């Protein structure tokens, strides 16, 4: 029975990592589409959403099956629940990538040549680092790394505030920029939300490793 369980767990871990890699790629592609006005890339992001949704459901079913059939405890229980939650976060991240891609399509159609905020690139770099880092921490069961990744969320939040302040200023100075400004405003917010989900994953990794729920303990890094 135990071998059976280990095999199921291995398959589950493998699936969630494949999903994670796909979602990470999707976020990359969505931002690329936005910054470089690539409607073709944005379309690709939109088309992959349905497959991600199906994938998420399959992983959840697998988790439920393991819970029902093996009734895992201790670290095994924490791993299955961590996968359940990470799965959910990844699906939400994919939705956000789709939202960013939609903004890219709109900008490309109606606001051709709109200036993309310079800081968006730097913000994207940190957000992607969080996504990748949180999943590395999951693979390596590295709680210290997970805490460090979670701390990066402050940096993303700072970029978010700065970009939005800049956009506001730009919209005030030139009403013609309002349309593009609002699109970029929401794309920035979506990216900020992506980083929040990465921070959630990092918190799940700490729980998986240490059995402590650190969510909402904002001062304990």
């Amino acid at each position, binding site marked *: 029975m135990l071998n059976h369980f280990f095999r199921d767990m291995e398959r589950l871990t493998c699936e969630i990592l494949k999903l994670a890699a796909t979602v990470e790629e999707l976020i990359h592609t969505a931002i690329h589409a936005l910054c470089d006005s690539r409607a073709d890339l944005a379309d690709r992001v939109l088309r992959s959403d349905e497959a991600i949704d199906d994938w998420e459901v399959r992983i959840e079913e697998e988790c439920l099956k393991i819970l029902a059939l093996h009734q895992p*405890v*201790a670290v095994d229980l924490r791993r299955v629940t961590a996968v359940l939650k990470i799965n959910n976060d990844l699906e939400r991240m994919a939705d956000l990538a789709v939202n960013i891609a939609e903004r890219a399509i709109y900008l490309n159609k109606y606001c051709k040549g709109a200036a993309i905020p310079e800081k968006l690139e730097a913000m994207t770099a940190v957000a992607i680092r969080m996504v990748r880092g949180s999943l590395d921490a999951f693979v390596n069961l590295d709680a210290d790394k997970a805490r460090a990744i979670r701390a990066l969320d402050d940096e993303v939040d700072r970029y978010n505030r700065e970009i939005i302040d800049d956009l506001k200023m730009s919209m005030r100075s030139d009403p013609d920029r309002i349309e593009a400004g609002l699109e970029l405003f929401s794309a920035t917010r979506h990216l900020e939300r992506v980083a929040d989900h990465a921070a959630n994953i990092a918190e799940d990794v700490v729980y998986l490793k240490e059995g402590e729920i650190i969510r909402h303990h904002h001062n304990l890094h």
Partner: protein
Amino acid sequence: MNPEPRVGGDAETAPRTQSQSSPTGDVSALKTSPAGDSAEAIAPPRSTDAVLETHNLSVYYNTLLALREITIAIPRNRITALIGPSGCGKSTLLRCFNRMNDLIPGARSEGNLWFEGVDIAASSTDPVTLRRRIGMVFQRPNPFPKTIYQNVAWGARINGYQGDMDELVERSLRRAALWDEVKGKLRESGLELSGGQQQRLCIARTLAVEPEVILMDEPCSALDPVSTARVEDLMDDLKDEYTIVIVTHNMQQARRVSDMTACLMPDEALADGHRTGVLAEFSATDRLFTNPKDPRTEAYITGRIG
């Protein structure tokens, strides 16, 4: 090493020293002579939450060390599960609590063992009174070859129960969640009942002498899932009035029913294959099964050893 006890610890022959005593306090009832405790006995801890406490308790069967230096406090009105692989001393520890090990030739203990602050192992402690206050339910249902009524009434009668026996039998059977199934056939033999009913009859028999603690040694291992569920529901109902300690091999059962779980593990095996049990971890059950602190507990409950 596992004698089939003749009765469930509740029907020993002794007049009740305190009839209808309240389930708490009443420590003096255990002692038959006031000057019995040995001079070097250390003072019992006076934790009001703990009913049973051990301190560095070691148990030997002849020269073999079965349990080493167990220190544990069993909380009042809670269900405490003892888990661990075979041969780790769970049942040995359980039997220490009402001195059932006295019945095993060559068994002796070192260290301290208290029930409500009274030294259980002291020669001044009357084992019969002790077993009335700390009842036991065994692995295999062991009703007497008597009627259902007599099974329940027996222990109480021997203990000099003066009240309304019909009322006591009904109350005990009701508390054991068996009344509705047997009320029409109280004069039939207890052995006619199903295994699950027999086990609840044994619980009713234990309850009839009004113990404060109920020790259960794998009470469901011979029962099907439906009967097991009934006994587990019953345990949950009983914990408002009693303190329950249960030995179980079934970890799902420990998770379902208990508030606290003690995980005993065998220490390194000796050359002859004999193993000594030690207490690996004692924590709240939800804690132990989600985030155990001891790597031996973790390995055991996740099935990686044992």
